[in-house]
């Protein structure tokens, strides 16, 4: 798992590359738990290279969901592969989280 990030004008973009499993989800959790993350208006997650997400990986997003909402930070996923989207959908997360097809739409949210 590789996490790269860049930020611009109130938007933080995280690019996830690889498999988000129990061990790599710790890395992601550290990124999202940083206090400065909540300073952004929008956190975009680029899932183009995300091949797999385990329940631990989902747990990281779930645990930060409430916090983001409270702080008024929008969490948007984009470029998600079908099989990963399927996992979000089965769990019912597609109704709670904003998942859009492309980066343009994500920026527009």
């Amino acid at each position, binding site marked *: 798992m590789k996490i790269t990030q860049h930020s611009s004008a109130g938007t933080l973009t995280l690019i996830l590359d690889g498999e988000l499993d129990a061990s790599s989800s710790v890395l992601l*959790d550290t990124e999202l738990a940083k206090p400065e993350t909540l300073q952004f208006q929008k956190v975009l997650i680029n899932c183009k290279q995300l091949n797999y997400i385990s*329940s631990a990986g989902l*747990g*990281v997003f779930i*645990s930060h969901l*409430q916090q983001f909402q409270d702080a008024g930070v929008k969490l948007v996923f984009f470029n998600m592969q079908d099989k990963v989207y399927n996992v979000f959908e089965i*769990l*019912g*997360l597609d109704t709670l989280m904003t998942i859009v097809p492309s980066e343009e739409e994500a920026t527009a949210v």
Partner: protein
Amino acid sequence: MPFRQKLKAITFPLTVLSWLLLLLSTLSNTNGRAAEWLGGPWPEWVTLTAQAAFAAGAFIYQRGRPDPLHGNDFVGLLRRLLLGPGMLATACVGLHLLERLVQVKFPTDDQTFFACVYTVNLALFVVFLAYTNYSWRSLVLFRASPRVQRQWVWFEVLLGFTLLFRLLDWVPPHPFDYLIVGGLGIFGVYLSGNQQWVAYLNRRQKWEAVLLQIAIMLALAVFVAYFLRIRNDLKLVAPAPQHAFLLLNAFFGTFYAFMGLMVTIFNLPTAGVFEQKREEILSMQRLTQLIQKGQNEEEVYAMLFDSAVQTMDADAAWLTLEDNEGATTVQHYRVSQGQADEVQRLLQEYKLNHTEYLNNDLASTDGFRELHLPYNSLIVMPLRSAKRRYGALYMLKEHRFGFDRENLSILQTFASQTVLSIENLQLVHISLENQRVQEELKIASAVQDSLIPKDLPIDSWFDISSYAASAREVGGDFYDFLHLPGRQLAILIGDVSGKGVTAAFHVAQMKGIFHALMQENHLARSEREKFPVPSRFMTQANTALSRCLERSAFVTASLYIIDYENAGFVFARAGHCHTLYYHSIKEEVSYFQTAGLGLGIIRNDSYEKHIKNQFYDYNPGDVMVIYTDGIVEARNADQEEYGEQRLLDMLEQTFSLEADEIKEQILNDLAQFSAGQPMHDDQTLLVVKFKSSQPDTLN
């Protein structure tokens, strides 16, 4: 070797016989009555032959006896040598004095008694020489090379030849006789150089050896003095004995003892060094043995301290151990806590407290001079491994230059040995702890196993088959059944996020929630409301779980309530895998596509909006496949997932079979797919087949 054994067996009697012959032949040459009675004088060659035979017999007999050296007990060998042959010497002196006394009291010209005493003493001398020289042989050949062993055999053979000198009435012409005897003497001197055994004695044993060797030389001197004294006695009737043989043997016996004495004396000053080395090796051995005995840490430290103090011969020492709070002194030797603290403080100031440090001249080091310690040499050896520091050993000596580089390397060995023992002990503790955890996991596994329903509901309406496997000792999957009144059956299946013990706790919790919520509500107004519908159940379960699940954990579940009186079922899917279904009417396999959010994701009342009930009227022959994600997410060697489509295909092929067989076919396919791959997640699979026979409704 029968010949040798035979020879050995007859040596002793032959020796005794030859001595008797010697006695008689000597007596026959006296002027006493015995001579007349014996019809003497007998010819001289009889006496000489008897003498030679006796000497040869005594030496051969002694040669065949067991090695007098037992292991490395050199002092024991010398002591026995002094006790046995020493007694012979005493007997010799005693007999001589007795003979003198008799001569003074009853002066006589009769030579009989004198001849007897002489013959006995000659025998004693020969035995003494044989015993002594064969004891020396043990010492010469101790750890000797084969070359030295061969040399010794030559020495024996050549000495044996000198027995023949007088016997054959032939003496080598002058000066060859001197040359031969002198040459053999030099050979003996050369062999006397083999004194390796002295190195194996410690200081005390060396002193003992010196005294014993002096005593043995005295005993030899007694015999030599006796024979020199009576050589010119008028009463001596016997011909001169085999001088060359006895002389050479006496010379060798004395010279070897003398060389041994010298070597021992010159080795005395170095004995201390050898003993110190010995002590070091022994200390090292003791430390090593402690590891294997698995003693506790205190004992290992105490052992290190004692060994180090003893080996270094330190005048004062202390040992500190470090933990998270700092260093504490655990062992003292002739040093006060105050002095120890001051030295440590000083070393800390110099930032030397964690390194090896050797100072042989404390008086010329400013900081130490101000402490006014009565010591001049200091050595500090930290105890540390690659991972952490354990403590440090401090040793002091009064005189300057008390420690050298070698001391430092010995201490290093001690320190690393100690750290090794300590880490070994810790490893043993950890592995014991692991074993205990393993045992507890086994118990947990057994407990969880007991939570899984063993008896599947049996009815003529349907057919159920189940399969469950955990990836670890305890798992996060669960399923349960509950018969409800009014011909209803509740089936719960679910999966707790995460694996292992935490997940297992939540599984037990879910089972509790299931049984608690599925209680009959007696206040319900209608029959339908007596038991919560699946969506209501999920909402209540969500509330219950919200209070105890950690923030990143969630649970997926599906609850099915089958009403087989009305041939229908209702279910709610809380984020769990879709239900696979074979519709017999449409002859079609599909997944129920319903929405529903997992439990513990939203932790407030709004959850209600995210869960829905789905009603369906089933037909006989319908098949329902319920599973957890461990089934569809199982991977093959190419890291591809088994997937929903493949599962659907399997049901299309097998829907006509019994529930058990459908399950087996799916599992076989799954096993083939993921052959050789480790199991990543828990797997649960339930197959429910609705039956056509409905005997109850027919009545």
